């Protein structure tokens, strides 16, 4: 099959729309994950989602129900318990291990075919239906709308919680709100890239963007752009060259971060030299 024929098949088109929606939401939310130094929380929520999905499968529900319940629950727990960014590590760690333990239990209880578990872990980009595309687009759009509405206060609380509190914002409420957005984004992204690789779209593009510019809005846009780039090119390489799409997306995201860091180092050296 030629590339153009491949791209016109419905499963590739579904995948294209789905990764577009996921990448935009993950790139935007990821920017705040990175500046709030909450990569560990993002990582944990993905894995907690695995337990939820395994539990839902065991009970005979759709995995997405379990994903939503567990990810939102964990997000709120982490948001409440770790409102000040200093105390969050322990809360995240305990939440993560407790949920993983549950996941192990659910899998052992579930005697059926393990394919459902496998797709939760690694995503099923090329098995996305129109219904999935609709749901993913709706949730991603909701995340982006809410995020743009709270953008300034969230940025303020993230960089200077004390000053923001003095000006009437509640760091705890903002933390819970953000963890909710993160949880929804994670649920959406898990459908596409799986639990193990959610991280790649949430953290790597934003981390790369943060190195490349110190203007928040520019970094946010760049993060979304890099996530989109990784997702599109990853999908293209997956269907054209072969190999898991998740692998390509992850690899591209990681490479973009690496390139940004190397460029960043070069630029810093340059400016040091010109100052000297």
């Amino acid at each position, binding site marked *: 099959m030629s590339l153009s024929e491949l791209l016109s098949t419905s499963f590739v088109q579904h995948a294209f729309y789905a990764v577009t929606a996921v990448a935009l939401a993950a790139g935007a939310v990821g920017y705040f994950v990175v500046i709030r130094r909450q990569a560990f929380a993002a990582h944990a929520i993905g894995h907690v989602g695995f337990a939820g999905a395994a539990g839902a499968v065991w009970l005979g529900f759709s995995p997405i129900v379990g994903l939503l319940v567990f990810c939102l629950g964990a997000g709120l727990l982490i948001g409440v318990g770790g409102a000040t960014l200093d105390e969050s590590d322990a809360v995240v760690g305990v939440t993560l291990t407790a949920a993983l333990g549950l996941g192990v239990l659910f899998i052992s209880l579930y005697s059926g075919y393990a394919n459902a578990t496998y797709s939760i872990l690694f995503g099923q980009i090329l098995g996305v239906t129109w219904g999935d595309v609709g749901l993913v687009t709706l949730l991603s759009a909701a995340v982006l709308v809410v995020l743009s509405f709270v953008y*300034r206060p969230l940025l303020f609380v993230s960089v200077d919680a004390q000053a923001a509190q*003095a000006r009437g914002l509640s760091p705890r409420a903002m933390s819970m709100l953000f963890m909710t957005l993160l949880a929804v984004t994670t649920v959406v992204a898990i459908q596409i890239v799986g639990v193990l690789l959610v991280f790649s779209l949430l953290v790597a593009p934003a981390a790369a963007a*943060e190195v490349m510019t110190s203007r928040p809005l520019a970094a946010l846009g760049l993060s979304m752009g890099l996530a989109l780039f990784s997702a599109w090119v990853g999908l293209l390489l997956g269907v054209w060259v072969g190999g898991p799409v998740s692998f390509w997306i992850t690899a591209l995201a990681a490479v973009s971060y690496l390139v940004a860091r190397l460029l960043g180092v070069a630029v810093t050296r340059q400016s040091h030299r010109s100052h000297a």
Partner: protein
Amino acid sequence: MSVLEMRGGGVVLGGRPIWRDADFRLEPGTITAVLGPNGSGKSTLLKVILGLLPLDAGSLRVFGEAPQRGSRAVGYMAQSRAADAMSAMTGRDYVGLGFDGPRFGWGRDRAKHDVVREALALTGSTSFADQALASLSGGQRQRIALAHATVFRPGLLLLDEPLAALDLAAQAEIVDLINLVCDTTGAAVVVVAHDLNPLASIVDQVLWIARHQVRSGSVDEVVNEKTLSDLYGHPIEIVITSHGRRVIVGLEEEFAHPHPHGHDHSHDHSHDHDDEVAHTHLDEVYEEETR
């Protein structure tokens, strides 16, 4: 009219009295230094003024009203702003957050650009306002932080340890800047500090908090051997060096002899803090003397 008036104010946190019977006023265009041991309740005082903590006794009026959380008329500069989290933005962005950071929604305020520019100009930060905060020196970062706190030209400006972690040259620079901002805006400025000396030349009033008490008055009224000995409950000696610096001797007493003065044992928990405090000041005295 006073900018702020505290009458018989007291705060209890978790069943532990922090300080009580605080009586003082803040007048426009004056600078007040808040001094005292770590854990004595200096930051608590700022929180009360900001409306983040209620008084348990007495009354507090800010601009004639009860303190209002989030008021634009009160500027606040927090003590430790994690530099790495702030690396994500330039000074101009951070000052901009002082203007519209608390506001939800999509609209843009056209006044923002000019207001931010003026705040940057007031604090002499214009030339480095477009660099990433992480790339600035400590003194430059404090200038930006001061611009952030003064963006609405507040009538009351609260600065929590603005000189901490600065070298001596940067300290002197920021002290001059605080004085300039006070003169220009006519704000009542409150500066929490752990050492009076760098501030002594610009301070109009001192609030000294120790052992749950607050003493207020001019530098000479508070920072003298009688008042401080009375406040700490044991003899304090003040040595004035040839450079006019005050070296306060005797704050380490508690550290060397934790219980010699018939402490009030109803506030037992305070011992830990007093010890820690004395330790800090011991270091400080040592530092002063070796300078």
